[in-house]
């Protein structure tokens, strides 16, 4: 006796996308969100540059108020001792506006990014469907694997060899082989490790960078962006039009599992709900340990969910300013720019060293934007590495981080009058949203936790041993980022399974 075809737990963007596709397929959907607004972890970003164009088209999101902002963007790789490197992004093409790097380095830089773009594009075809399983015994999986291999091989012998060489490589070696300028090396390394538990010398960092390009049509930097609140709002509008029921301020307590199927969704307020298909937009650990509960997990599954690495490393802060800031040595439009401070591989490596020992980086890397909203100025900044910590950190740690950020930022500004710093560490994020480890991507993007291994054996195609329970969040293929592909793929799988 189901009231709904599908219940989606968690109103983050993947849940909204999944609900959109299901409702488009004439399913009766209920979406449950614990907060008073939708969006989940997306609130920690102002913009997304990677939201899937395919999904925008499929769902006709522009009809629901979605605005794609196309403005020339600047990326400023900041330099304390000399000239900043300023990249102009126009029509998704990168050109050097100013830099200390010589012409040869600039060419190598673009060449390197194009190489990754080539590989990213040939992989992007595998983004939009469930990954194959190895040795499942099923012909369709074998076929998919062969097709994957062929897609790479199509690029030619030389490119195939290069691909196989760099897939396990670390970004530091790659940039050291190809570039001279420290700022450029630091910039690419930073992008490769942002949001991960990797350092520039960690194998797998190149793969991480290629993934980021893959979800952005092959581009590391783009100048098309969508405001996250606009995105969430337009998705919400679509859902309302499709009669998707949305329950806000409602937390799910757990699921009742009977005979290996989800029989009930039990809310914290005691109410019980029924649906044929239950979809969790929560991270894998929350899904397994909170929703299903360890009591209903097989011992091997408990081990795998425990071993799944989900340790957040990025802290996010919103800095309210008293007045308009003035940045040193940059004359462009500060509102259309992204500032990155990661001046060399060594700098980044040292920041990473601290996080390995569960310490906050003394000199963290920073990526920030300056925003103007209703006449007021804000800085939204991502700081890496501020690792998630199992031990309770004292308030004083937090104060230290805030003080450090303020001091470090001041180095770059002529005028910076800080009113307030609202800091969210991975611990805060876990406290707030519930995501284990405060990890935005719902788990590390490392070779053993990606593609047909994500999140772990038995659950790599959006569902597992409990047949009517699916996961659609970033803890599934293809991974994290505000792109919505996970939600799309899950909906696709559900519809396929029901045939």
């Amino acid at each position: 006796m189901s009231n709904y075809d599908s219940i989606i737990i968690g109103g983050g963007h993947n849940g909204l996308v999944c609900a959109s596709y299901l409702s488009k397929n004439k399913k009766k959907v209920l979406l449950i969100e614990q907060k008073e607004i939708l969006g989940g972890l997306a609130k920690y970003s102002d913009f997304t540059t990677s939201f899937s164009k395919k999904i925008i088209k499929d769902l006709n999101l522009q009809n629901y108020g979605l605005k794609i902002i196309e403005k020339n963007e600047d990326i400023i790789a900041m330099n304390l001792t000399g000239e900043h490197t300023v990249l102009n992004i126009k029509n998704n093409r990168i050109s050097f506006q100013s830099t200390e790097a010589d012409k040869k380095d600039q060419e190598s830089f673009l060449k390197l990014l194009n190489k990754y773009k080539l590989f990213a594009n040939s992989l992007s075809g595998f983004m939009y469907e469930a990954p194959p399983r190895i040795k499942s015994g099923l012909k369709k999986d074998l076929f998919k694997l062969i097709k994957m291999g062929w897609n790479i091989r199509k690029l030619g012998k030389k490119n195939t060899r290069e691909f196989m060489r760099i897939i396990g490589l670390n970004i530091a070696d790659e940039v050291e082989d190809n570039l001279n300028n420290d700022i450029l090396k630091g910039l690419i390394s930073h992008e490769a490790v942002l949001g991960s538990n990797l350092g520039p010398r960690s194998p797998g960092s190149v793969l991480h960078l290629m993934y980021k390009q893959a979800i952005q049509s092959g581009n590391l930097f783009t100048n098309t962006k969508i405001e996250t609140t606009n995105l969430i709002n337009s998705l919400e509008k679509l859902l309302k039009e499709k009669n998707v029921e949305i329950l806000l301020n409602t937390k799910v307590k757990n699921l009742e599992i009977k005979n290996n199927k989800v029989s009930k969704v039990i809310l914290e307020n005691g109410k019980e709900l029924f649906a044929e298909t239950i979809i969790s937009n929560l991270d894998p650990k929350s899904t397994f340990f909170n929703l299903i509960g360890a009591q209903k997990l097989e011992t091997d599954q408990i081990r795998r969910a425990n071993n799944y690495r989900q340790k957040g490393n990025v802290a996010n802060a919103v800095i309210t300013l008293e007045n308009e800031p003035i940045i040193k040595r940059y004359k462009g439009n500060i509102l259309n720019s992204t500032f990155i401070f990661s001046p060399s591989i060594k700098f980044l490596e040292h920041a990473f060293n601290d996080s390995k020992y569960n310490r906050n980086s003394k000199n963290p890397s920073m990526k920030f934007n300056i925003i103007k909203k209703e006449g007021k100025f804000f800085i939204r900044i991502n700081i890496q590495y501020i690792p998630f910590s199992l031990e309770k950190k004292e308030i004083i740690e937090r104060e230290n981080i805030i003080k450090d950020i303020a001091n470090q930022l001041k180095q770059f500004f002529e005028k910076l009058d800080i009113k307030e710093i609202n800091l969210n560490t991975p611990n805060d994020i876990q406290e707030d949203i519930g995501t284990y480890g405060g990890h935005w991507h719902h788990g590390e993007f490392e070779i053993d936790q990606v593609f047909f291994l994500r999140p772990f054996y038995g659950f790599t195609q959006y569902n597992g041993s409990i047949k009517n329970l699916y996961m659609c969040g970033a803890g599934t293929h293809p991974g994290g980022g505000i792109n919505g592909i996970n939600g799309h793929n899950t909906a696709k799988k559900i519809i396929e399974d029901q045939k």
Partner: protein
Amino acid sequence: MNKQKYDVAIVGGGHNGLTTACYLAKAGLNVVVVERHDYVGGAAVSREIHPGWTYSNCSYVCSLLRPEIFRDLELAKHGLQIIPYEGSATMLDNGDFYGSYNDHDLNYRSMSKFSAKDAEAYERFSRDVMRQCKIIKPLLKMTPPDPTSFAPKDIMGLFEFAKHFAGKDELGGIGEKEIHETIRFWTMSVRDYLEEYFESEVIKAHMAGSAIIGTALGPYSPGSAYVLLHHYMGEVDGNVGAWGYARGGMGSITQAMSKSLIANGGNIKAGSAVKNILVKNNRSYGLALENGDEIYADKIVSNLDVKRTFLKVVEKKELPNEFYTAVKNFKIRGSSGKLNIALDDKPIWKSIPKDDPASTGDLHFTQSIEEMEGAYDDWKDGKWSTLPYVDMCIPTLNDPTMAPQGKHYMSVFVQYVPYNLADGGWTEEKRIQFGDHVMKRIGNYSTNFKDIVLHAEVRTPKELEAEVGLTEGNIFQGELTMDQLMFNRPIPGYAQYKSPIKNLYMCGSSTHPGGGVMGAPGANAARVILNDLGKKIRSHYL
């Protein structure tokens, strides 16, 4: 000028070069091994640096030497004997020690001292690693297939490779779950891998050591668990994962190989440094020696690492640009140092009881993985580790031939030591400082060590490079990371022991399956050469 023409000339008398030479000689070919020093062996040598003592002054323990090669080359007949050792230990600052033993029950009790759960977890851990060893073993002796090629032999090779995972083998077949485990194991960091089993810091540190020996990776680096496998997959007498001492030092291995080579009609030309590999019309045809002589051969095989081969002894103009750049970018970073110490007496360790079998094997004092990672951090900054990881052993406790009665030889392998020191580079003074630093640390754990040191040979990556010829002193002739393994080793597209130059082959550890005293690269190269010549011999390995 020597105008004699050989069938094959091998540049470098390291163990792989000797292995290749032996197999080719057995096939009836006229081979010569051309070696720079007066003695052969490369990094598997026994040297009398201090009168009366024999040092295994580079490599020091044997496990990876393929048993089939041992038999094919009749090494036992030519004097090689491997003595297994019974245990290993990590000495702790608090006066205690963690002992690891071959005796299963004793080992369990020893681990229980630190954590009862870990002692139990160790059984599953060893089973899992053993399974990985069995999965990878057949891959060691394969010539890596070229996955980009459509040539029939490569398609067949890929098929064999896939079949290995698909079909029934020594393990009776592996399924999806085991493949997941294997991929995870090959790509994880050893720390993450160990955390899934163990809770005690000491036990984890003891296990993780094998993952960092000789590498430019730390225990937190993804891919370090694979190096652990690399060190576990050897065997002594069918005991997978066991290590032993070559009686008489590691030189016994290469001495036995040279005797076997001579017995099969091969030749060794020692004291003959090669200046150039002679190439004409993209074909190699001989060697030009430093002393002006030339040696001619139909085929040339280089036992040198890939950088030394193609950046030093082959002229740049003979090589395609891309290949040359790829070789330049090949990762071969030195991270290890070695001390060889002559002792006047048996060292007494503060924390290990006298005669405890754990003291006869490898000894360490790194007490946590964090400490080990800190040692790696120092190396990244161009310094030798303040708290280095050491792999010490005293072969003379089991081997009566390497020192006078009552005296001992101690081998100390140190991780991490950079090839390029940050402030100004290596000088004689710094080398001595480094040696003193390590010896002081060893002295902290012993009541008599500092009083019984008669002589110490201190080797940094610079010395290893200068004497042994390993570029930057990297003991594996190249990093063992995914980008340089299997069909990527040493260069993608050139992973089948051949170079862009016709008749020029590679047989050193820069090729698959990589470093350590294995002999597999040498034997695999021999197989490829014999195939090219249409020759076949009966052997256990090929």
